[in-house]
């Protein structure tokens, strides 16, 4: 660890020699579980349409968080947490684009 700390690149690094085999393995196992659950539910048609959509989206978001925490080491960033702030700004834009498009086009009578 000492040599990687010696080559830290200042503010906003957020990814410099953090992480251990344990954290990567936990992240990997969690990702596999979070992939298998929606797969089993969808392929066996175990739930209603709305419940399935909510469940598989929840699993995808959880897996996103798992990758951010265990693989991309977002939690281990030094403050000020520029990476986190940039990510939140990005997610606000992403949600606005996706949810806004769906909302507008659902009520777009011209297209139907």
């Amino acid at each position: 660890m000492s040599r990687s700390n010696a080559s830290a690149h200042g503010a906003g690094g957020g990814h410099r020699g953090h992480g251990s085999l344990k954290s990567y393995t936990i992240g990997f196992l969690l990702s596999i579980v979070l992939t298998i659950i929606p797969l089993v539910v969808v392929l066996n048609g175990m739930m209603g349409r709305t419940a399935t959509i909510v469940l598989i989206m929840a699993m995808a978001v959880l897996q996103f968080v798992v990758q951010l925490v265990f693989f991309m080491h977002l939690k281990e960033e030094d403050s000020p947490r520029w990476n986190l702030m940039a990510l939140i700004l990005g997610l606000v834009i992403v949600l606005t684009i996706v949810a806004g498009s769906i909302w507008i086009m659902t009520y777009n009578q011209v297209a139907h």
Partner: protein
Amino acid sequence: MKTFGFWIFLITDCILFATLFATYIVLRGNTNGGPTPEELFQMPGIIAETFILLTSSFTSGLAVLAMNRGDKKGLIGWLAVTALLGISFVTLEIIEFVHMVHEGATMQTSAFLSGFYTLVGTHGLHVSLGLVWMIGLIMQLSRRGITPVTERKVNVLSLYWHFLDVVWIFVFTVVYLMGVM
């Protein structure tokens, strides 16, 4: 600072994919009499692609761990494993696309398929570019070893690779799982 710059790039790439996801979701029902998602998607191949990319995200993490130990052989080895998994992923995706085109489901068939090929194809292109980058970096590492510069490059590349896995999770969920529901 350069790592933060790359992080900003990843966020803008997120926004690029958001527009493609929004387009796909809006156009998903417009099949124009052509094949629907249920008829088209072959889940075994998709499931294999998903686990291959997931594993490659893990092995790129193992490459970073090897680098942090100062283990050049381990670093290059795990990067090579990651690249091989990435190549398998792209190969499976190309086979899937070729199969679909042979069934008459081309990009011009319907709005659904235009959105589908643009979204999934853009992700596949990202993975392919990542592979070129990874092979180039393996060559540089074997010549120069682990220096502060190559170390930063490996960190940034592994961030990129994890990001591609995150995007694929949403492609898998929104396109494929919701398609065959």
